[in-house]
């Protein structure tokens, strides 16, 4: 099938417009911190530079409640849910996928630094050309017949996970004209309590697209968003085989994890 010309971007705004909005919000957040407010450690739900948030963020304050037992425990996952081979995204097809082979490893911890053991970590990503195996991904980059981009693993006794994959490419999207997402890997995590549920993205160090991306920048505090960036770790690299990145993930804190020790699968 011949490549089609990229369809006209839905968003008509320029990068200059989006970038100006991003900087205005960051300046506002920095001013609040200077006045004694807490840094914004999480993305804003209403973040206009990310246009898809406009009609989807709740307009009412969330109702703050104490978690009950349903929220204080989490589904149990284990060997019946995930095959050990699912953590290697490079062996799911007959041939080798194209791209820079790498391992991504780290620990999943709670707010007190305790390992989150035996919980599910799911990962999905674009291929080396920046294309997802998804019917609605219109980016005219080639699909790789040897790469699906999905992995799963159960964290080990000290909260560790490890994936073998290839580095995803940056790709265009339609938030505004000439919008590009920095290379990233989506992560889905469960903790020991359902309140620890987290879906996030890992990015790669030194990406020139960080400052331009309204999803990454939706976290107004620079130090907080930097926590989404993995660290190149030469000790994790395998000679003549792959490059290594380390990325630790911290879920919510102590109140949510009071069940530790009562977990039947510890």
């Amino acid at each position, binding site marked *: 099938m011949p490549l089609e010309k990229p369809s006209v971007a839905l968003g008509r705004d320029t990068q200059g417009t989006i970038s100006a909005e991003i900087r205005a919000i960051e300046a506002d957040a920095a001013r609040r911190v200077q006045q004694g407010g807490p840094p914004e450690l999480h993305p804003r739900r209403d973040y206009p530079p990310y246009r898809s948030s406009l009609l989807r*963020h709740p307009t009412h304050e969330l109702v*703050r*409640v104490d978690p009950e037992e349903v929220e204080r425990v989490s589904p149990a996952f284990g060997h019946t849910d995930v095959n050990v081979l699912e953590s290697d995204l490079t062996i799911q097809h007959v041939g080798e996928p194209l791209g820079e082979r790498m391992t991504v490893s780290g620990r999943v911890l709670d*707010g007190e630094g305790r390992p989150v053991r035996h919980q599910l970590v799911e990962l999905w990503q674009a291929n080396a050309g920046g294309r997802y195996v998804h019917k609605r991904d219109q980016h005219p980059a080639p699909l790789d017949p040897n790469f699906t981009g999905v992995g799963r693993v159960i964290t080990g006794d000290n909260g560790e996970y490890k994936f073998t994959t290839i580095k995803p490419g940056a790709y265009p999207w339609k938030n505004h004209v000439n919008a590009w997402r920095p290379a990233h890997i989506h992560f889905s995590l469960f903790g020991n309590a359902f309140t620890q549920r987290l879906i996030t993205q890992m990015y790669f160090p030194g990406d020139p697209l960080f*400052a331009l991306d309204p999803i990454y920048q939706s976290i107004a505090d620079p130090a907080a968003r930097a926590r989404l960036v993995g660290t190149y770790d030469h000790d994790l690299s395998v000679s003549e085989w792959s490059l290594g990145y380390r990325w630790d993930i911290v879920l919510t804190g102590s109140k949510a994890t009071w069940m530790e020790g009562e977990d039947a699968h510890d």
Partner: protein
Amino acid sequence: MTDLLPTETRATEPATGTPATGTFVQTPSQTVGPFYGYALPYDKGPELVPGHHPHAIRLHGTVTDGAGEPVIDALLEIWQADGEGNLSRELGSLDRDGFTFTGFGRAAATMAGQYTFTTVKPGPVAGHAPYALVTVFARGLTHHLFTRVYFEADAAQLETDAVLALVPADRRDTLISVQDGPSSYRFDIRLQGEGETVFLDFDA
């Protein structure tokens, strides 16, 4: 053009927080995006019990945005007790054997923004009004949303439920499913605007 130049090319900071203070700082959330469809949904994900289970119910609804348009790329998860109010510790949520109740389900919205779970009506846990915890993910949500689905048949328990009591009376209905068939319950989710669903923030 200089104002477009990236400013964040510095070396990365440690991923974990500041152990000096005894706390680790939470990793920020990011949107699930639109392209999870080949990764997160799985075979029988929405079937906590098979459809022929004697107590099977259909829990379904539509997810809509602030313009009333269906959210076609929403992903929902539920986590609930079984019919007797017991929380499962069983494995096998991703690889259903058709018999084990694990309490967890995951459903992607259809092109009409609709979702359907096959489950059982949860029983009361510790004397509270029965509910299923619902988690909503979608493109445009920088952070997932939690809500609860209660059941209108449990009227007496709903009257005294501590969480419902925190919700303004005129919004309480957004947390209560409507029985629309002998074994069918409808729970629509409005992310924004008129009839906006009450979303919960757990003190965690």
